[in-house]
């Protein structure tokens, strides 16, 4: 389908243009990226500081948590980079810009995504990659992880980003009815993305259940990694990230289209 190739070309053009525009204020851009990354790195260092004094958190050691933390950070960074405009969808409904998306010969979601990127967020992804890399190295050396497991783990951020994206898509689609969704996003995005960085086993049952169902971030890292570390679960857990990502995207996109056709009948 020529469409996909065209979309990729468009996207890479957008990426280059976005970066060029931001590099106009080079010093500030770099500083902001570094600070953003530092903020996230700091969260992990705090866990490391806790584990400096205490043995484990829920039976997970510092590098084991590093696997969770790293994959979640990478997924988060990738999602925030490419899903930038989706994350800010609220203004399209509140200020009536959604019309401009509808006059293009493409699905509105695609038009939305190609309006902007936030390459600065890749700093968070890079920081996550660093944490993940260090943790993998340490666990490999200690024999707790096989090489194959390590390769598999590096593919997780892609599915994690897809799951975050799906949750964001459903949340943003709610804007068709609620208009303002910034507060909802704290519930559906910020809190779960943070919670996914640590072993879900330590959370109260209700929170755990939520993160395995309506906001399935558990499958972005925790579920497969728990199995790979021999802490529970089954081999099936290794395919759950893909399955959950696909299902979540399907459902969310259906919800988006529902909101879109509602918009077309009521106009706002």
């Amino acid at each position, binding site marked *: 389908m*020529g*469409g996909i190739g*065209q979309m990729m*070309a*468009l996207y890479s*053009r*957008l990426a280059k*243009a*976005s970066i060029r*525009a931001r590099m106009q204020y080079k010093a500030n851009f770099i500083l902001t990226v570094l600070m953003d990354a530092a903020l996230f790195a700091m969260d992990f260092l705090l866990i490391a500081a806790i584990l400096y004094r205490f043995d484990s958190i829920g039976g997970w050691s510092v590098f084991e948590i590093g696997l969770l933390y790293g994959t979640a950070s990478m997924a988060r960074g990738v999602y925030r980079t490419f899903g930038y405009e989706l994350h800010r969808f609220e203004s399209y409904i509140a200020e*009536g*810009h959604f*019309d*401009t998306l*509808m*006059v*293009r*010969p*493409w*699905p509105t979601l695609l038009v939305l995504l*190609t*309006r*902007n990127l936030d390459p600065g967020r890749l700093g968070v992804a890079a920081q996550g990659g660093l944490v993940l890399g260090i943790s993998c190295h340490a666990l490999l050396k200690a024999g707790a992880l096989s090489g194959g497991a390590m390769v598999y783990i590096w593919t997780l951020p892609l599915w994690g980003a897809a799951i975050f994206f799906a949750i964001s898509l459903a949340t943003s689609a709610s804007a068709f009815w*609620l208009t303002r969704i910034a507060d909802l996003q704290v519930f559906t995005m910020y809190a779960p993305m943070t919670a996914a960085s640590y072993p879900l086993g330590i959370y109260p049952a209700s929170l755990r259940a939520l993160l395995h169902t309506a906001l399935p971030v558990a499958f972005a890292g925790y579920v497969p990694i728990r199995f790979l570390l021999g802490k529970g679960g089954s081999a099936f857990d290794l395919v759950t990230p893909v399955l959950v990502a696909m299902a979540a995207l399907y459902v969310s996109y259906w919800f988006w289209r529902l909101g879109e*056709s509602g918009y*077309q*009948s*009521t*106009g706002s």
Partner: protein
Amino acid sequence: MEYLALEPRSQVMIEAKNLVKIFFVAKRFNGSFGAVKALFNREAREVRAVDDISFKIAPGDFVGYVGPNGAGKSTTIKMLAGILHPSDGEILIGGVSPQRHRRQVAKNLGVVFGQRTQLWWDLPVVESYELLAAMYGVDRERYLAAMKRFDELLGIGELLDVPVRKLSLGQRMRADIAAALLHDPPVLFLDEPTIGLDVVAKDHIRSFLREVNARGTTVLLTTHDLSDIEELCRRVMVVNHGKLVFDGCLDALRAEIGVPTQLTVDYTQPPANGETLSGLGFQVVDGDRARGPNSLTVAFDRALISASDAIKALGELGEIKDVHLTEPAIEQMLKQLY
């Protein structure tokens, strides 16, 4: 994605059949839990934004869609573009329904919203054009030809490197119109494109639109500025309260209501008696007492008397200090239409 040509059937490019659009305006609740209260109370009143409108537009036509605010103009354009679904009725653009085939119709459509830009806000203008070219599958040759054309007619060249957010309203409008025409669509919709612009900018844009139409593009322009219509459209559709109250050529509209222009002249001293003016086709307007005894206001039909002739005639009555020309507001005009 190829550029699909639409086949206009029997000389009709745009066809609207018995269009109706009903909005339900829900009762609003104030206070902290307004949104929750609204969910439980479904009282709503019916608003017919578009009430049985039908028309046919031939290829190459330049049609003006006029009406006061809230008359249903924007709603109609949105339905034509596939943004809104009509409550009843049908639309065909080049024989294709924008409701059923939004994306296919969109390939052949250029849309300009007066209040909102479609350009990429943080990027230089040229990037928007390149992105749009990629999006619509415009090859390099056609792209360069289009850019050259836009520079000659709209002066786009000087704007290319400026980030969109730094453009003035007039500049942004020029850039937006060029963007809408980049893929050379056979149909162009403009929703209030000259709103808020100064006279020079309006002029620039109007001459460009004339060029565009001369090349064969079908243009539908909504506005509530009558001079836009005078300058550009051969055909006018007047809409009020969701109904089409006039559909015909501009001359016919002029004949029905005369399209009177008002000219106010301030003299250095009280002018001579204006009785002679009525014989020449002027109508003295009495209501302007506030300007004082040194000024005189007349109404006349610009189709019969040019502005310079009018000023000359009024100059006979005394030494002119200042001249003001006002166009009739659309509301006044419409009142005369009933």
